[in-house]
């Protein structure tokens, strides 16, 4: 199983890095959020930052945008799976001793790796926007781990939902259906304190909120909340487990 998983995982990663367009889009998308959404408040940005307890709104926004980006990488994992089904590659894999579960794991980890590529680019961009960071390696490790858990969890969720589909349109439709509610019902772009109670309830269990909160601890220097990391780890484990069994049962070959 390890041999097949490593082979298929590396295939996913290499295909991303060898496709400059996909790589560029992966990096540019969160950067645009930072640039346009972060700068869109114009003269009000200073007042907004002050209200959020920071000197720069982008400091607040960056962890949220990176967390949201981990959500969107799941869609790429699904698209890659559907591409393999449509071009017959899924059949090629399954005629070997490789199982459907291994295919699922390779797609989930591959999508997560693609998501993590965004971190260094976004950090450099944020520094250019005047954001300062903690220099503690432990803080960084925890943040990267949190984003990894979020990415693996969301990628697994997407893969489980689209396991039986062979339609190119499905990942986009599912993404639209899931991404927007999860993004806007989280504390990624603004604090959840002012949410109506029903939205606050969603935000309080939304993994994006936990990931954003952990990142802010690092960026704003308010410390690491280990419970946030624990929650994200549980989210990843649950989603991988669900995806694993759903794929074994419902992953369509073509």
């Amino acid at each position, binding site marked *: 199983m390890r041999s097949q998983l490593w082979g298929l995982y590396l295939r996913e990663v290499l295909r991303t890095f060898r496709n400059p367009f996909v790589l560029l889009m992966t990096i540019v998308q969160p950067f645009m959020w930072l640039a346009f959404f972060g700068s869109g408040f114009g003269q009000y940005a200073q007042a907004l930052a002050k209200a959020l307890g920071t000197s720069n709104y982008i400091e607040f926004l960056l962890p949220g945008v990176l967390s949201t980006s981990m959500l969107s990488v799941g869609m790429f994992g699904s698209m890659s799976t559907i591409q393999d089904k449509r071009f017959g590659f899924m*059949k090629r894999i399954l005629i070997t*001793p490789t199982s459907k579960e291994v295919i699922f794991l390779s797609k989930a980890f591959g999508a997560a790796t693609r998501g993590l590529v965004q971190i260094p680019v976004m950090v450099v961009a944020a520094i250019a926007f005047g954001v300062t960071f903690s220099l503690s390696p432990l803080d960084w490790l925890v943040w990267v781990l949190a984003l990894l858990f979020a990415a693996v969890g969301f990628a697994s969720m997407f893969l489980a939902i689209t396991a039986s589909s062979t339609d190119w349109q499905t990942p986009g439709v599912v993404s639209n259906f899931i991404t927007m509610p999860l993004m806007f019902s989280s504390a990624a772009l603004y604090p959840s304190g002012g949410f109506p109670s029903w939205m606050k309830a969603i935000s309080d269990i939304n993994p994006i909120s936990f990931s954003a909160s952990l990142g802010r601890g690092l960026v704003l220097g308010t410390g690491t909340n280990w419970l946030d990391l624990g929650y994200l780890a549980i989210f990843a484990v649950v989603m991988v487990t669900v995806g694993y069994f759903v794929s074994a049962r419902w992953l369509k070959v073509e």
Partner: protein
Amino acid sequence: MSEPAIVTQELTKRYGSSNGGVLALDHVSLTIPSATVFGLLGPNGAGKTTLIKVLTGISDITSGGARVAGFDVRRESLEVRRRIGWVAAEVILDDDFSAWENLWLQSRLQDLKEWEPRAEHLLQYFGLADRKDDRVSHYSSGMRKKLEIALALLHQPSVIFMDEPTIGLDVSTRRMLWDIVTGIHREFGVTVLLTTHYIEEAEALCDRVGIIDRGRIIATGTPAELKARVKADIVQLETHQPVEAAQLKAIPGVQDVRSQGNDWQIRVTSAEEFLPRLFATIRTDQVRRISVDEPSLETVFLDLTGRQIGSDEPMRDIRKFYAQMRRARA
């Protein structure tokens, strides 16, 4: 005597519900001896690809049983998959990867430890060694097909499934592939199950042929045995002017008459007896061209089903259609 490479017993595959749906394989019982090239000949939609899907474990069996390379397809699927190779109708490669990287990935999927010497040998054998580090997107269609066969052979399978391997290929590439199939069978000693709807392909390559139609195997044997079943000669006739079909049908010994314009295909019990009677019926100056053919596998199919292979079959597999379109654009 060694165990047969493939054995199916009353193998049935139904897509959709048990009441309705499509019966793709209808109680197929087949024995394919080891180290042979077995051709499955039939029109589009006959069940050829479904049989391969079922034997490779890609599709579930509805009822009946099958053994491949000595293992039960349902209960010992993993053992079967360790021992089979597959060459698809359309070439399926990772275009962003080189030939060597495609072989590396295949070695991973097959969980092979010492794969490099075998990969080098296969690249040499197929004449791809010089281009092994080039991305396969830069390969010609013939090279891509060769690489795909190399991938299928990497783990030294005992059975290779080739699903319409020459569909959409130009004539020279098709001939090259025929040589390869014959060569790998000889060089590597594998059993090849090949599906095709090209009569000449089945005749040129296969030790034994199974004729499949509407999910049923309707005949098996060597090409010579199958043709010997047809007690008829085929007379091809081209006339200058139209001739009445009834006139030809009335000649003693005529079994069947088909026409397209002034071209006639007349199936007769004995050409030797028919020809004098024909020239007694029509004037010799009416005849533009005439020839007598031995029965072919096409005749066998016609004899068994009353239809010609591919005469009225639409392209049912849309991926095969797209594969052809891609090749046409390349």
